[in-house]
């Protein structure tokens, strides 16, 4: 009898171990959201690209897909040319390539107005897409992009917004974005991007016109890194302190009533 009990106990134990192993494996695999960058994942990324990105970015990623001209005509923004290595939305300094997380973020969020969010792809697919896009520009092979430090945000207050307003003028932001941030500064009409397409400054009173994101961190990042290929410069060497930038962020958010 006891032998039978022992056999049952062993069988149950084995079953529990197998079950737990399965559960833990499943949990572990679910947590591995960033797959390894290898040829297999690059190929998987290409397959996704051919179904989703080819229409705007073109067959080989040169930004010359069949929808590119319909999208904005002879205006900016145009779909990115991934073979040129010039990226607009990133957390690294101007001269650097974007970090993987930057590409992942843009794929996930899209670009308001012009590129849909691809949050419908599971994270693994988005990472595969990142790897394929990186494979289109050889510079990524040796690059070691470092995201900038954001520091500690300054809480929004009347004082902070007021200081930010002064910085807004001191840095000359109103030249393009206008005194009220409506994108109607005196230079606005004559701006062009690096492809000589006319470009319109962001209307800071409408957060969905901020293509690089409208969160506090997004705006901070945009000010510090600039937007490559556009007239928006990096102010990393211009501002005196990170707190100044956070004040400026608070001022910009106040323009849309969302501080």
């Amino acid at each position, binding site marked *: 009898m006891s032998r039978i009990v022992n056999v049952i106990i062993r069988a149950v134990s084995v079953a529990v171990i197998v079950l737990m192993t399965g559960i833990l494996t499943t949990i572990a695999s679910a947590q591995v959201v960033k797959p390894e960058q290898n040829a297999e994942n690059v190929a998987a990324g290409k397959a996704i690209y051919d*179904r*989703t990105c080819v229409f705007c970015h073109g067959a080989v990623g040169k930004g010359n*897909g069949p*929808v590119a001209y319909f999208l904005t005509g002879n205006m900016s923004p145009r779909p990115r040319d991934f073979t040129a290595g010039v990226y607009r939305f990133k957390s690294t300094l101007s001269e650097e390539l974007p970090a993987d997380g930057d590409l992942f973020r843009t794929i996930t969020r899209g670009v308001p107005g012009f590129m849909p*969010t*691809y949050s419908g792809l599971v994270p693994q697919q988005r990472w595969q897409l990142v790897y394929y896009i990186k494979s289109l520009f050889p510079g990524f092979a040796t690059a070691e992009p470092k995201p900038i430090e954001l520091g500690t945000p300054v809480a929004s207050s009347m004082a902070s917004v007021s200081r930010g307003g002064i910085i807004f003028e001191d840095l000359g932001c109103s030249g393009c974005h206008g005194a009220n941030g409506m994108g109607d500064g005196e230079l606005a009409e004559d701006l062009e991007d690096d492809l000589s397409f006319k470009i319109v400054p962001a209307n800071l009173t409408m957060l*969905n016109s901020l293509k690089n994101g409208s969160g506090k961190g997004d705006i901070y990042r945009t000010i510090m890194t600039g937007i490559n290929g556009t007239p928006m410069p990096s102010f990393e060497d211009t501002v005196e302190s990170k707190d100044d930038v956070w004040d400026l962020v608070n001022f910009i958010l106040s323009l849309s009533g969302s501080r």
Partner: protein
Amino acid sequence: MTRLFRATRRGIVLGALLIGAITVLTPVESQALPAFARKYDMTCSVCHTRMPRLNFFGQRFLENGYQIPGTMDGASVKKKLLGGSNGATLGKVSNYMAVRLRADVERFGFNDKDATESDDKVRIQTPDVINIFFAGTAAKNISFFFETEYNSREDFGGIAFERANLVFSNLAGSQGLNVKIGNFDPASFFSFPTHRQQMNPVGPEAETGDFPPDINRIPLLPLAFSSKFFGLTRAASRAGGEGFAILPFEPTSFNAPSARGATLYGRPFGNDFLYQVGLVDSTRATGERGYDYYAMLRYDYVRGEYWAANVSAFYYRSPESANLTSMGSMGGMGSGMGSSMGGASSGADNQIAVADMTRYGIGARVNYKTLDIFGALIFDKLDYTLPAMSASAWDNDASGLSLEANWAATQKWMFSTRYDKMDAGGLVAMAKNSSWLTVQAKYYTTPNIALYLRGHNNLESADDSPVRNLRNAVLAGVDMAF
């Protein structure tokens, strides 16, 4: 002729003034966006060459059940989740609902004004056509579409139910099998879809209760879609079984604006080929119910530098689709029809055979930068059994060609032209070929509001047939969606 020329000129001047005035008075910085654009925070031109035509990305969005191509995002994107991670999703009504308004000023010119009851004066149709849409994703891979239309142009005017369907997407892996059920446009995936015209169709003015039909003004639409056969009638529930004449210009079978049934489509062999098969409810010539069936195959090439193209071919079969109807005695017919023919008779009195109808055709489309060129060549065939002597009075084959080009010269301006040619079939004594040239200039004050000026010109010489009586038409109007 001089009078006609003056009238046409007046129409053009009036339209130009209207467009000019609205152009000056309308602000150009509006960011108004229709439902899907609102939902995804995108401008209309992500999916449209210009509203309402879809670009190659928009076509895939449609195919994928209103989900971003390559994804299955229906349940999550921009929606609230109720009741936990597996709960129901709910989005804002404005993310599902859209309204399209069309209104215009029309001027029709006739060769013989006395031969038609159609109003040849300048007339203002405001609002002319209003469509209300509800469309979106109910859950992951389940989408819906509903459209109702108020159309003051149609004879039966008023509010009509147009299309409503459910789509179940990605049933056999990504892209492999999708199922659409309900009322839909069978040709929506064809290279030249029946709907989404840059030059909106203008309906006919005709009475089809008697035979031959009394045509006061033919419709203006892509003639490749037309039924093309003269001398056909059909029993229908709405005609009380008495039978009604089928207008040779009526868009039909594969190109019917709406058909009830089911269609399966997908891309099981990669991104290049799209298949579609379908079964749709149909009223037989006898008034009984039956089913038509069809198949379509499309090849897409989207890897060009700023260009993409597709070609497609379809086959559509409609058994016992129409009655061949003679004008009393087979040999005694005049050359015209309708008001020019004198007294009309019941079609049911002169039905001589039930015919199967087959439609097949090819279509092609090329986009280059902001140029959108497309066309369709569609053949129609009647199959029936008649004595040889009578059969000689019928032409069993017809064809239609429509070629269109749209060029978005700037973000604001689009110029369009279309050539239509119909080689008519059916009762030889009645059949009349038709060909038209249409040109249009469209000005987009915003991506979703367009003002247009359009001219239609009949390329056929005039005779005593009502189908040749319309010489030209000038329309100036507005087409907006929000």
